[in-house]
């Protein structure tokens, strides 16, 4: 494990742990609170650790050497392309009333789907240059 990977793990894992805890807590509190401003605050609370996780990812990108950064950025580009094409196709199907996906779920799945796609493309790129 490189120092950059260790730093990434040190920053990313606590952020994700905090996300899980805050998400559970905010979901629990949201059941009993009706005031809209407070509900908005509670709903957005899990967003804070996600920003920290994104910051950890940016630190990791900057700590990489130029070739590794190239691989990661290629994987980001391909993930963005796959995700936007996929969501465009979903939008077309929804507009034609073929499917009716729940908007909140679809919006919340964008980030995890992007992470999964990035991981897949990064693995493919790493194998290509091994």
């Amino acid at each position, binding site marked *: 494990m*490189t120092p950059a990977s260790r730093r990434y793990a040190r920053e990313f894992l606590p952020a994700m742990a905090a996300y899980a805890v805050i998400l559970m807590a905010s979901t629990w509190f949201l059941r009993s609170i009706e005031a809209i401003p407070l509900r908005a605050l509670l709903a957005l609370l899990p967003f804070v650790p996600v920003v920290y996780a994104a910051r950890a990812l940016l630190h990791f990108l900057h700590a990489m*050497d*130029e*070739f*590794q950064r*190239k691989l990661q950025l290629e994987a980001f580009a391909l993930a963005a392309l796959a995700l936007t094409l996929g969501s465009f196709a979903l939008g077309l199907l929804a507009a034609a009333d073929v499917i009716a996906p729940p908007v909140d779920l679809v919006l919340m799945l964008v980030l995890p789907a992007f992470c999964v796609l990035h991981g897949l493309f990064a693995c493919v790129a*790493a194998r290509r*240059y*091994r």
Partner: protein
Amino acid sequence: MKSRIRELREARGWSQLELGERLGVSRQTVNAIETGKYDPSLPLAFRIARLFEKRIETIFQYEDEA
């Protein structure tokens, strides 16, 4: 682009990992440069040339793809 990095590295008895540590890059990066799958940036090419005490054009040879 062709390079003589593998030859120069092996002449010094360094592994790809050792060379990567000296250059501040990963073993995977050294391998990609040696196999011609990745062309290093100009600053990295200069660092390589300085490390091997050679002129940059004696380490890297541009191959016209046409």
